[in-house]
């Protein structure tokens, strides 16, 4: 199990298409909502996650992540996290890397020769919305959210608004 994950991560790093490998079924526990706090949702392992209601309403962070992703990330990683001619489908990275490593790569970047992921650690447009982008991509990568703009969303909670204002300065 762990080995497969590692191979997948390696392939991602090399920019190889994932389709060549047998699909590893995703454990729903890795994204199922266990509890919520002020409009944010978490798994039982305290990892931020998305929440999508039966009528398609997404939580605020997922919607916000959609917006921030398409401003900061999509010029390389393509629309809806699908990848481009020169950068991998990052919707899969959010699933395969896990939260901590995902954050690590976004903050610090990484360099694979002519394929370079920049570090966004000093960019408030990314750092203030890191969880938003993560849960959005995780919803995409686990096939719980279709391509395109989410039609319906939960309202932004006061706490999320205050945190955002504090972070953006």
């Amino acid at each position: 199990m762990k080995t497969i994950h590692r191979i997948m991560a390696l392939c991602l790093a090399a920019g190889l298409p994932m389709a060549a490998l047998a699909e590893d079924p995703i454990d729903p526990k890795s994204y199922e909502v266990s509890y919520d706090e002020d409009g944010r949702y978490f798994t039982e392992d305290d990892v931020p996650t998305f929440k999508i209601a039966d009528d398609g309403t997404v939580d605020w962070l997922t919607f916000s992540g959609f917006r921030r992703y398409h401003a900061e990330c999509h010029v390389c990683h393509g629309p809806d996290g699908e990848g481009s001619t020169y950068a991998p489908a990052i919707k899969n990275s959010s699933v395969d890397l896990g939260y901590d490593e995902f954050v690590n790569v976004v903050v610090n970047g990484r360099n694979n020769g002519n394929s370079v992921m920049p570090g966004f650690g000093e960019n408030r447009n990314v750092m203030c919305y890191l969880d938003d982008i993560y849960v959005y991509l995780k919803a995409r990568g686990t096939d719980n959210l279709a391509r395109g703009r989410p039609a319906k969303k939960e309202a932004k909670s006061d706490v999320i608004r205050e945190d955002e204002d504090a972070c953006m300065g």
Partner: protein
Amino acid sequence: MKKLKLFTSGIALCAATMAYANDDLIAQMEDPSQWAIQTGDYKNQRYSQLEQINAENVGDLQVAWTFSTGVLRGHEGSPLVIGDTMYVHTPFPNIVYALDLANEGKIIWKYEPKQDPDVIPVMCCDTVNRGVAYANGKIFLHQADTKVVALNAETGAVEWEAQNGDPAIGETNTATVLPIKDKVIVGISGGEFGVRGSVTAYNMETGEQEWRAYSMGPDSDILADPENTTHLGTPVGADSGTNTWEGDQWMIGGGTTWGWYSADMDENLFYYGTGNPSTWNPAQRPGDNRWSMTVMARDIDTGMAKWFYQMTPHDEWDYDGINEMILTEQEIDGEERKLLTHFDRNGLAYTMDRVSGELLVAEKYDPVVNWTTGVDMDPNSDTYGRPAVVAQYSTKQNGEDVNTTGICPAALGTKDQQPAAYSPKTEVFYVPTNHVCMDYEPFRVSYTAGQPYVGATLSMYPAPESHGGMGNFIAWDNINGEIKWSIPEKFSVWSGALATAGDIVFYGTLEGHLKAVHAETGEELYRFKTPSGIIGNVMTYESAGKQYIGILSGVGGWAGIGLAAGLTNPNDGLGAVGGYAALSDYTALGGQLTVFALPD
């Protein structure tokens, strides 16, 4: 006495060298057997007098030889041919090859610069490079990291280097350079990183900086004269580069300069366009944001601006104004005039008097363009020269955090940098276009040096209620402002066109086809599928009495972002998601030059 004599002969020698620098390139450009500059000539016409390959026989065209560049990224621009040598460039790491056309394309020399790979992620939209330039025995390469290098054309040895910008604050380069008179004029990229755009002239022999003209800032920075620099015939006045900005926002104002430049030696002017103001969120930068989105005419020797024309004041859609200015001499209203024709990202094609900067024609060159009802052409009007913005499609009027839907064209424009061609024989422009619309939602962003400074989320999709494809290849009449014919294409046409005296026009497609069509009718006469999608520009040359057509394949660039996975129309509902053709179903990465000729 003897001293004086020496001194004068020194001056004579200097003058001779300076004249030579330009005469050499001009002679090469006038010789149709050569392809001496990326744009075909200083007029950017991309027209060749060669007619061995023509409408009668182009159907017999065959591949003569091929060359792999060894790089798998978006390949824009084209090779040059000087004498018996072909110069081929690549995307990052920006390798240059000199190939011996008299010896089956043997590699004479190869130059590979050492660049910090950290420049890659600060390049918006792939690591493309639009090619090298030639003058006076030197090849000029403007690298991704903004280093300008002069190489000895015969040996590849470095003659001088100049650092034009700083990648650490998002300054990069994708464009070619303009060698003219004793100067090399270069631009800069980074509009999505809050870079303040500029053009800079370096001495062709020494690499020393001679002048720099910013797109916005104080008069001394933008090289504008309040009295003598005009906008539609009116002096721009003092502080025109700062007084339509709030506070010091002009310092990160965008207006980058990564397009193709043209020049009129008789007027001593060169022409180019400036890009979008930073950020894409219009609410964060109130005002007209001068001189972003502007056609510029500047003096070659001093950089001083003669005239400006701002096409899209206070941009709300990322309609960069950088596309090429094509220079022609044509009759308009019974008078022979020196014209400039420009196909803007905003979907309007402008015909101007290039000496005075007078606006003559401004018409949509794709009927789906909907953000404006047109440009005010009344010189007595308060809004003379301004486009009338349709409120429904105004991302400014709809405001931050509102998703404005159905805007045509999309941010990549009705046309991006892919250059059009002009045939003096037909007096028609041949224009590769995009047929894509978008939803655009601006929101607040903060600026960090060297980090993306975008501030909007975009969804792009093929123009609704049209032929379903994402591009057209059109023939345009710049005098009457009309489309003469239009060829629908499945994908955006991201390849530069070539028109020839053989009554044919060539262009490439994102699927990888090189196509030849009839210059009068648009009828397809030839197609060949090259190994990868084409975003390069078609060129032609003659060697040992035989005409050749060359094209770089290698899909990527901005076209490679959205189109690789396919575009979706969110307004069509979930059923249609994935229903549009994905480019990855047609082609894969590559990096190859394919050269065509008629059979012996």
